[in-house]
Every structure is written in C-alpha cells, then in structure tokens.
C-alpha cells in the first residue's frame, strides 16, 4: 500500500480544496441555468482560488527553511509527492495567475456571451495539474501532473470552438503537445532502463555512483538520449526555441484571458518541472545539460525578441515576448545548475512571479480594448488611448516598462536577479545576451507606447469599458508591478524559500 504522511490532508489542502471546487463547477455546469447563475460560478471560482491562495501561504509559513516533507510514498518505498518551500512558492504563482484570469474572464465571457461552468472547471483542474508538477519528485508523478494540466489547457485553448483561429491554434497545440508527451514517456523509459528508477533522488544517487566509478564516459548514450528526449517535452511546454512554433497561433486563437493564463501559469509550471528534474535529479550531469540549455536560452532570447519586433497583432507580439521571457528565466535555471546553488532557483521563482503580474496586466489591457466585433488586439486599437482612457494608458506603460526591464518597475528587479545569478555562475555570454536582447525588446514595447500617445485614434472609437473585475485586476497588477519594483525585499525573501539544494 502507498504510505501517506500523517498530515497528508493538511499538507495537501490546496490541492484537495481545488479538486472539490473543480468538481462542484463540473456538477453546476450540468444544470440548465441562466447566464446570471453561470456568472455566480465565476464568483465562486474567485472565492475558491482566494481560499487556495491562503492555504498555500499557510502551508509555506508552516515549513521550516529547506524542509522537504514526503507526503506520498509509493509501493517501492520511493517518494512520489513532496511538500517543500519550492513547491509552495510555485503553487502560489499558479493560483495567483488563475485568480487574475478569473477576474479578467468576466468581461470576456460577457462580451462573447460564452458563459459555461466548464470554463472554470478546466481552469481549476489545470491548476491542480500544475501543483502536482511542482510537488512531484518522480518522473511518472510529474507526468501525471503535466498531462492533467495539458489536457485541461488544450480544452481551454479551443474554448471559442466556433471561431476558426481558436480551433486551429488549439489543434496545433494539442497534436504537438501529444507528440511531446509521448517523447516525455520515451525519455523516461530510457532513463529507467539506464538507472533502474524514475525517482529523482534515486536517479541522482545512481548518477553519482556511475560518475564516481567510471567518470563521464560511464553515463552512456541511452541515459544522455533519455535526458535530451525528456527535455524536448519540457522545452515544448515552456515554449522555448526551437520548440516554440505553436505559441503565437495558440495564443492568438485562444480567448484573451486564457492566453494570459497560458502565458503565465503553465509556463511557470513547466519551469518548476524543469528545475525539479534538472536540479534535483540530474545535477551530477550539469556540465552536459548546462551547455545544451545555454544554447537554447540564447536562441530563445534572440528569436523571441526579433520575431516580436515584426508583429502588428499585440497578442502575437506578447506571445513572442513571452518566448523571450522564458529565455530569461532559463538563464536562471542554467545558473542554478552551473553554480550548484539555490540563487538561480530563487531568481527564476522571483522572475516568474513578477512576470505573472506584468504579463497578465498587458493582456488585461488587450481585453480592456475588446468590444463586440473586435478583439482589441491590433496595434491600431491602441491608437490615441491616452485621450480615450488616460488611466489605462498609464497602466499599460507600467506593464510595458516592466516587461522591458526599466527601473523602477518590478521587471527590472526580476531581470537584475537573473543577471546576478548568471554572473555568479560565470555565465558571461548569457548575461550579455540577456542585456542586449532586453534593449532590443524596448523597440516593440515602445511601439505600443507610440500608438497610445502619439497616434491619433479614429474619432468614432468608443471609450472602452473595463467592468469592475477587470478594472480591479488591472489596478492590482499595476500596483504590484510598481510596489515590487520599489520595495522588492519581502518578495525576494519569499522567492528565496524555493530551495532544492542542501546549501
């Protein structure tokens, strides 16, 4: 029988509360009710995610620094699921992303008249999958989390099923995702064949043993190939070059709140999994994978920024920008592997938190400009926004400055932490590419500013309306981006609890 920790239910309270809410939404979606009643499901989702956020914070506060609690142990005595500072920090980011997505969804679902209970069900189950991805410590548990998340997000990407771009983007995402998931299992089978285990701690011990007895040559091709194949799947989920093609199409086609969600939470979950697998499991092979991932990081930062410069659709531009930001976060991961310290991990966690606020805010502004018959995602939709809605134009500047890494916004601090971790690990080339590509990114972020401030909008354009939930979410994101930038210490301390290594 699998062994549960005596405090299993308390330690995993965010997960089971989330599952209860998800199941409730599923049952409610079967009821033939009015749109007003469907809206109540949204309010319940908001409440549910707020409760889970508090539970995550509570569990994190109850853990002492560096503590790892095995909450689920398998038949073979190997730990499958753990609760530690790392998992709790990442869970917090996922739930925060979902909470803001729900807030932003009210306007979208109203305008599109697309209220259904399933929307919130899949959102909830996607977050549940992400939590397993952050807590899993064996390759198969992680895969279960990955698939729970991915299947829910495929459905959400195709939510506007009567709109062709939505279906096309979601189909591409699904088919490529299914292939990458198969690759993950193939990689896992090769690793299992080579090491005799799928548990990350045991894989690490097996690797140390091999290296101690036979040196690097003892690693063997099957194990190295298994790791590369496994990485491909995760590079795909995190939308890193050269596995990023699905991103612009899927982001452009999906409902804007879902695009915002996809660009933040699943990406953070993929990074949690990448960190867990590479740093907790494959650290002895760091000299091998840091080289490979450095190349991926350089390509991602360069290609994401260059491609974003060519876009006229703001959603596509933000999609490419999200690819570039994944490249920045990857620098932190490589730094963690190279210097074998927790600094890079904390930098990634902090960056992903900051990125959640600034990117959700930017997508929220696209949503603000949405009206019946127009998605509000063209560059021209931003023309003369300063005259139509000065407050929103200023908020957009906050988000764009933050995305570009300009002080005193939070994005600057996020990039600075990544930059320092790269310097600390002597990754000078990565640090230089990060700095140069950040400067390049200013071009396309300031293009939006140019449209908002210097271009005259059409006279017959109506003043957009935010609605209370979207207005609140934009205001909160704006405050967070400024507050973290001006006083980041508590947030840096929070991120430093994401510890995977013993020192």
């Amino acid at each position, binding site marked *: 029988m699998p062994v549960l920790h005596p405090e299993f239910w308390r330690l995993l309270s965010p997960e089971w509360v989330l599952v209860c809410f998800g199941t409730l939404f599923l049952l409610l979606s079967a009821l033939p009710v009015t749109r007003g009643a469907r809206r109540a499901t949204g309010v319940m989702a908001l409440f549910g995610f707020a409760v889970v956020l508090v539970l995550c914070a509570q569990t994190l506060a109850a853990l002492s620094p560096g503590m790892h609690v095995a909450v689920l142990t398998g038949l073979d005595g190997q730990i499958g699921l753990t609760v530690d500072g790392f998992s709790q920090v990442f869970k917090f980011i996922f739930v925060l992303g979902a909470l803001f997505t729900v807030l932003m969804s009210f306007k979208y679902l109203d305008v599109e008249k697309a209220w259904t209970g399933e929307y919130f069900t899949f959102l909830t189950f996607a977050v549940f999958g992400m939590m397993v991805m952050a807590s899993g410590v064996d390759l198969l548990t992680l895969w279960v989390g990955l698939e729970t998340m991915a299947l829910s997000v495929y459905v959400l990407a195709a939510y506007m099923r009567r709109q062709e771009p939505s279906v096309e983007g979601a189909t591409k995402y699904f088919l490529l995702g299914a*292939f990458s998931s198969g690759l993950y299992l193939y990689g896992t089978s090769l690793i299992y064949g080579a090491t005799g285990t799928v548990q990350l701690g045991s894989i690490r011990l097996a690797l140390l043993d091999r290296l101690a007895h036979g040196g690097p040559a003892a690693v063997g*091709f099957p194990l190295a190939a298994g790791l590369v194949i496994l990485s491909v799947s995760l590079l795909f989920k995190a939308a890193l070059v050269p596995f990023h093609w699905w991103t612009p199409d899927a982001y452009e086609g999906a409902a804007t709140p879902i695009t915002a969600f996809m660009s933040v939470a699943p990406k953070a979950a993929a990074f949690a999994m990448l960190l867990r697998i590479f740093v907790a499991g494959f650290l002895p092979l760091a000299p091998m994978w840091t080289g*490979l991932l450095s190349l991926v990081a350089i390509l991602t930062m360069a290609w994401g920024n260059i491609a974003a410069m060519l876009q006229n659709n703001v959603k596509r531009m933000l999609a490419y920008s999200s690819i570039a930001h994944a490249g920045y976060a990857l620098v932190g991961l490589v730094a963690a592997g190279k210097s074998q310290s927790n600094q890079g991990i904390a930098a990634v966690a902090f960056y992903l938190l900051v990125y959640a606020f600034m990117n959700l805010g930017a997508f929220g502004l696209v949503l603000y400009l949405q009206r019946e018959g127009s998605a509000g995602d063209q560059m021209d939709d931003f023309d003369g926004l300063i005259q139509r809605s000065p407050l929103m134009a200023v908020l957009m500047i906050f988000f764009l400055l933050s995305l570009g890494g300009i002080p005193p916004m939070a994005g600057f601090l996020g990039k600075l932490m990544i930059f320092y971790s790269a310097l600390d690990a002597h990754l000078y080339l990565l640090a230089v590419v990060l700095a140069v590509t950040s400067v390049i990114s200013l071009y396309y972020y300031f293009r939006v500013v140019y449209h908002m401030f210097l271009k005259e909008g059409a006279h017959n354009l109506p003043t957009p309306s935010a609605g209370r939930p979207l207005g609140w979410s934009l205001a909160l994101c704006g405050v967070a981006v400024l507050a973290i930038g001006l006083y980041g210490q508590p947030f840096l301390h929070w991120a430093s609890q994401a510890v995977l290594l013993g020192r």
Partner: protein
Amino acid sequence: MVTPWRRLGVYLDLVYVFPGTIGVGTGLGYLADRWLDTSPYGTLLGFLLGLSGAFWYLFRMLGIVAHRGRRDGEDDGS
C-alpha cells in the same frame, strides 16, 4: 476540389518525413562527433535539432491541412 487521396498524401508524408528528419539530424550530429571528436555532444545536439525540425514539419503540415479544409469549405459554399 481536393480528392480524399490527395488529402491522404499530406498525412502519409508525415510517416517518413517525421522520423526521417530526426534520423538525418542525429546522423549529421554523429558525423560531426566523429570529425570533431566531441562525442556524444554532436549526436545529442543533432538529435535535438532533428526533433525540432520534425516538430516544425508537423506544425507546418497542420497549417496546410487547416487552410485546405477552409478552402474546401468555401468551395462547397458551406
């Protein structure tokens, strides 16, 4: 009007192009390893790039299929 056989051809392409791209990438990586004595990094990088190429082909093919489907739909007047 696109016949079902022609449409099938697009999917059949995938059967050999997908694994073929991975094979070519890995093979080139292997040759690079032998030439530069960098084993196994060249092979692994070639394998990764081959996989990337295979995925790109799949992605491109899905786009072609979607556009053909849309064009056929317009032809049918539906």
